[in-house]
């Protein structure tokens, strides 16, 4: 079991989600975040004041996956989130100590297997 944390461009989120859902990776959480990834800041002007925007809008995706899903998930994000420009983001794979599915109380591997769609 791993926790995959990916930071991607907001405009790439739809592409990433579509690709993940297509590959049956359906349990995930996203949050809107801001960060700096080495890209050149753009300059904005407000009422005569120039500012450099050091933080860019990003989306953080968190996915708990079973072991054999780790590499496919990473590969999907790598290809779907990429534009080739600085600022495309990062993918981090972290170990997980325990996972529980709240609805059933299942834990670990059982807790991250895809749930068949309910009729």
């Amino acid at each position, binding site marked *: 079991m791993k926790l995959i944390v990916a930071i991607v461009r907001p405009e790439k989120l*739809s592409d990433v989600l579509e690709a993940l859902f297509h590959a049956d990776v359906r349990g995930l959480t996203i949050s809107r975040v801001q960060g700096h990834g080495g890209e050149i800041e753009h300059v904005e002007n407000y009422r005569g*004041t120039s*500012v450099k925007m050091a933080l860019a809008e990003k989306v953080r995706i968190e996915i708990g996956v079973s072991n054999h899903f780790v590499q496919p998930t990473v590969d999907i994000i790598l290809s779907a989130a990429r*534009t080739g420009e600085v600022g495309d983001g990062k993918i981090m794979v972290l170990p997980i100590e325990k996972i529980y599915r709240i609805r059933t109380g299942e834990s670990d591997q059982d807790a991250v297997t895809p749930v068949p769609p309910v009729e």
Partner: protein
Amino acid sequence: MNNADIAWMLVSTALVLLMTPALAFFYGGLVRSKNALNTMMMSFVALGPVAVVWALLGYSLAFAPGNAVVGSLNYAGLRGVGLEAQGAIPHLLFMCFQGTFAIITPALISGAVVERMRFNAYLAFITLWVLVVYAPVAHWVWGGGFLASMGALDFAGGAVVHVNAASAALVAALVVGPRKDYGRHAILPHNVPFAMLGAGLLWFGWFGFNAGSALSAGTTAALAFANTLLAPAAGYISPASAIAMGAIGAFPSYFALIYRAKTKLDDSLDVVAAHGLVGGHPGQVLTQMASVVIVLAYSGGMTFVLLKVLSLVMPLRIGDRHEGLGLDVTDHGEEAYTHGDGAILVKPKQSAIAHAAVDVVAVQDGGQL
């Protein structure tokens, strides 16, 4: 001239002027937040260059006595446009009232090209369009041109404003091309209450647009007023017919919108469905149809030529990467919804440096340049 007419037309002119910022809210609410400021400016900015070229040249081409196709240059730079009577009101006021129509018409077109057309190219386009397309068409219908001689009726801009804008919008959407996400991803409005605020203000301004088109404070204005309340019809039909026309007129618009969503045509805010497929005057259908077809063809053709010529001088649309970022940042350097987090003040003497590509230093040095 009497003061009642003048008073009503002063109010009407201000009401129509309000429709352009109202359109900014209407369109601005319908786009994604990263393009909100840009989209609102596309409407709002028409108040600048269009108003200026209208006063300098456009008004003369539309309303100065000329031939059947275009007006003369007699009123260029507002020469001879003073406080003497033009109909029931001072000539200068008539020019202003007509100016508010000339301003909102190109702003309407922007809805077809939002979220990807470059702001500079758009500015150049609407400025030229008012002179090359709007002014002659206004002359044909209202300035004593050949459509007026044919007996075509256009009380409040059905042909001059709506058909004209819709045709230009269709062509502009085709020439500029669809947004990169169109048909691939869901593109949702970012602020529906804004769109409703804009719609409400547009309706309010419409009382000036339609009832003001009587060009006096008489009973025709009252009729147009009532019809504006009941349907977007104006001064030539009865209120009962207006209800019927409103009911019937909404259908083609609605179905055109549903159909457009299934096609590759990215008329982003459905300008064509809204302005191209409503209206019509029962009773003299053939003359009206002829004038609509002529305006459609001319506006569409000239819009195509204008955009193609402009594209030789400047790119019409932004690159894919900028389209992803949104035009607020790329074309305006200002965001509609900025939070200020991570904004580093650039001191005035250093602002030249800040535009250079080596700004990463700022972050490594704790935000100090």
